[in-house]
């Protein structure tokens, strides 16, 4: 198992190199010369060819691509992603806190999504076709179909404005988490509990449940067996869900003025602040790879069939 883990982690390194290279050359694909963007951003009144050339050499852009990539990669490893074109501040000083805020929001939401999906999935599978199953499925269908911006507006209006229970926006206390987390959880839990439910149901119809029953095993023990086998699907699904949520909090963050990655990135895209966009793409891609690897390792640990091939 340890050997497999090391092998799996080792395979991640070339993948990260490819990702970082793609992210690096992404900048070159933009129609605007970065040097020109910098000059615009700094409010230089007249931009001449000489000035652009001077800025290019100042930014090191006249050197060969691979040399620039190597330098960039080395500095990235030290969390030095350069400076924002707009504010001139180091990228990490902007991105770091924003990443932490978004990560907090994502992890709190994911925790609720996982707990809620598993609980609802089990209950609905065990009560398949009964009124509880039907009502949970229809309510979740209704909630999941609502666009998150509309749901957010509705909840802000009711809980913050009308009842004055929760803050409308910002990140001031634990209470600030309630509304954004609720919107994210509602959007995803309805989807993931269905995966758990159908995986539970297909396992409940397996022969091993019948044989277990025929041997006189208790329903509780059989439910645990079914759950363990169903969760193998869930681990992969949730492993990919967390980075997806991480990357898709943009709408919710903008509505609730959450000082996170989503807000930062939208502003950076509007200002063509390339170093920040570049760092954002890199950080998110790395997060995807890491969560995926972690879920693979977890799956191997719980599924003896996968372990066999090691």
């Amino acid at each position, binding site marked *: 198992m340890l050997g497999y883990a090391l092998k799996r982690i080792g395979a991640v390194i070339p993948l990260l190199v490819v990702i970082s290279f793609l992210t690096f050359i992404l900048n070159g694909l933009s129609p605007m010369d970065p040097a020109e963007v910098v000059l615009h951003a700094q409010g230089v009144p007249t931009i001449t060819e000489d000035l652009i050339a001077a800025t290019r050499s100042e930014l090191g852009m006249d050197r060969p691509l691979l040399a620039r990539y190597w330098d960039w990669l080395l500095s990235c490893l030290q969390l030095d992603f350069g400076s924002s074109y707009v504010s001139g501040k180091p990228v990490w000083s902007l991105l770091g806190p924003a990443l932490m805020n978004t990560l907090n929001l994502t992890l709190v939401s994911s925790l609720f999504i996982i707990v809620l999906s598993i609980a609802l999935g089990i209950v609905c599978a065990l009560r398949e076709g009964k009124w509880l199953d039907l009502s949970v499925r229809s309510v979740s269908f209704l909630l999941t179909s609502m666009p998150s911006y509309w749901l957010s507006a509705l909840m802000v209006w009711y809980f913050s404005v009308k009842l004055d229970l929760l803050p409308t926006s910002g990140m001031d206390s634990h209470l600030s988490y309630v509304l954004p987390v609720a919107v994210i959880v509602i959007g995803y839990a309805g989807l993931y509990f269905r995966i758990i439910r159908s995986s539970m149901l297909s396992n409940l*119809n*397996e*022969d*091993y449940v*019948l*044989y*277990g*029953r*025929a*041997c*006189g*095993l*208790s329903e509780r*023990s059989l439910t645990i*067996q079914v759950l*363990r*086998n169903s969760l*193998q699907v869930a681990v992969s699904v949730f492993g990919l869900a967390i980075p997806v949520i991480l990357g898709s909090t943009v709408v919710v963050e903008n509505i609730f003025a959450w000082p996170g990655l989503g807000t930062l990135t939208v502003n950076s895209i509007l200002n063509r602040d390339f170093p920040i966009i570049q760092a954002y793409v890199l950080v998110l891609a790395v997060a995807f790879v890491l969560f995926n690897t972690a879920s693979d390792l977890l799956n191997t640990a*719980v*599924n*003896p*069939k996968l372990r*066999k091939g090691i």
Partner: protein
Amino acid sequence: MNGMHVLEVEHLNIWEERSGRVLVHDSSFRLAQGECLAIVGESGSGKSLTCKSLMRLNRTGVRQSGFVALNGEDLSKLSDKEMRKFRGRRFCMIMQNGMSAFDPSRPIGAHLLETLGVHFNWSRAEMETRLTATMSSVGLKEPAVVMRSYPHELSGGMLQRVMISLAIVLEPDVIIADEPTTALDAVTAYEVVEQFMRLRERLGSAMIFVSHDLGAVRRIADNVLVMKDGGVVEHGTTKNIFAGASHPYTRYLVSSKQAMSRHFEQLMGDADVAKG
């Protein structure tokens, strides 16, 4: 137990609750101590449903009525909890496909020990000793390794033997084998049927042997019940059924079997000679 029947089934009806479709109608049969009854018939004739309903194991949505008694005790009067104690201990099921019969995420031994733990107050060491002894007796060479193995690490024939050895330890009144040889290759199936014959000799339990395999039925069964479209079309001794069945469907089954298996029986006959 002279004259007394271990299992009595009278007017068993099975139907689908939602559509009202009848799956098995008015099926009655009895099983004497030590008797082996084969239930044959095509897929969908209600063989498996009949077996499952004896243990009240049909899935939700399938209802049953009729009288099922084990050693004179009416099973339909038992609560679910009491019925669960009967399953495994009094009735033992042997499944068609060993590969899917065990939890894929647990070693085989976990299932075996848990089952014995439900029915007996034995210490773990005692359970292991008994399992190891019976496993060796059915031809499983390294019982300790088998116990530690996951289902996918063993072959279908080995898993079939594991189920047989569990049945031996449990010493049930009735063994229900639901197409135990269908998923196996011919040679393994032959050996597994051999194990079933020894199992009968050893335990003296009554046995219901559901099968497509008329060759196996002829070797093992005392009596044969032929089912078609949810009804019993013929019930007689194995000898009579194979010699001259009265129902045309049974005659059809027997004749097609004989045509198909002549060559195979010659081969297995040779194998018998070689072994002996």
